[in-house]
């Protein structure tokens, strides 16, 4: 069963989504809820692109994909 992601995994994921899926950096604490939704949406895009199960949640399979060496060009147009 997928394990709960650790804190540094969450940082890895946010960095990855920022670099390759245009996740915007959190500027204000009150936007926390919105940012979380945004992470989920970006995760869905990433999972869909790589043919993973689309959950919008950070699971082991998604983290493993994020850890793979890759090209620095974003996977999305915007």
């Amino acid at each position, binding site marked *: 069963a997928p394990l709960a992601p650790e804190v540094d995994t969450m940082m890895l994921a946010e960095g990855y989504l920022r670099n390759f899926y245009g996740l915007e950096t959190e500027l204000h604490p009150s936007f926390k809820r919105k940012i979380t939704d945004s992470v989920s949406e970006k995760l869905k895009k990433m999972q869909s*692109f790589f043919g993973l199960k689309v959950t919008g949640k950070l699971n082991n399979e998604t983290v493993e994909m994020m850890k793979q060496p*890759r090209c*620095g*060009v974003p*996977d999305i147009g915007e």
Partner: protein
Amino acid sequence: YVLIDGNPKWPRNDLTYRIINRTPDMRPADVDEAIKQAFEVWSNVVPLTFRKIEDGAADIMMSFQFRDHGDGYPFYGPHGTLAHAFQPGPRIGGDVHFDEEETWTKNSKGYNLFIVAAHELGHSLGLAHSPDPGSLMYPNYAYRDTKEFHLPQDDINGIQAIYGQSLQPVQPTGPSTPRTCDPNLSFDAVATLRGEMLFFKGRYLWRKHPQIRETEINLISQFWPTLPAGIQAAYEDVEKDQFVLFKEDKFWVFKESNVVHGYPKRIHQLGFPKTVKRINAAFSDKNTRKTYFFVANKYWRYDENRQSMDEGYPRNIISVFGKIGKVDAAFQHDGYIYLFHGRKQTQFDPNTKQVVRVLKSTSWFGC
């Protein structure tokens, strides 16, 4: 394939490139050759030409860069991001930057410069990342045999959508990624590995976990970079936690992603006569530790404990497994043996020695 938003492209077909600096990881001549070949990957399939210049501004400037290098996209040290490129356009447009902190090579160790350069040049010419895991424009690095490199069909379709077809009389074609639910799909080899099922076909393998609905397709080289494509047989030795793969007269033993020292070896070291040139299929019975090898219409049985072939073999497949004929792939699951031939697989009960049913080869994928 996916085109970069706005469909940017070069307005001319005769482009120039310049190599600004070279990595100390490789001989300068090898860097130049890898980059030249990377350009040829694309010029072979579209009416573009690339001319190398030594001074001044070229359309595509290629360089090795370190950490923050002033373009707003810093590198962060080894692994992670390997390189990036800019879409067609003036000044920085088309330029390619490689992360100097990676280990660049002309083989399967570290990161192969030719493969990364060819991928980045796809961006320089107007291609975005493709979700096809077999394509060159897939964002994750995977080593592939560079001596026999053929640009995948997905990439050919993409670049020809931008620049048109090659001027060559015969249009180049490339390998296509197999479709998981293709009714005509057959397999080169099938095996279990740590509770998952692996299905091999050409350069690809599908991973299927019995409790997970989705099936994942990957390049074989993503897991075992040193293995050639076209594996012909495979089996898991559960007791030793090893994975054995066969191609032609060689076999490899892997422990996780590392090849065990001394491999590949010749199949004749297992006790096969010299007349046997390749293994078509294999499976290992984890209870008896007997491994079955299928060759043409016969099979051999190998004792993993004694490390030798059992007496009285080969036997005819038909005498034990029924009218199956040649076997392409085989594996054991939940006490049954599954024997694949073409688009079909036969579920065989070794206790009653009877065929239970005949299924489509892709039945495991939930198609």
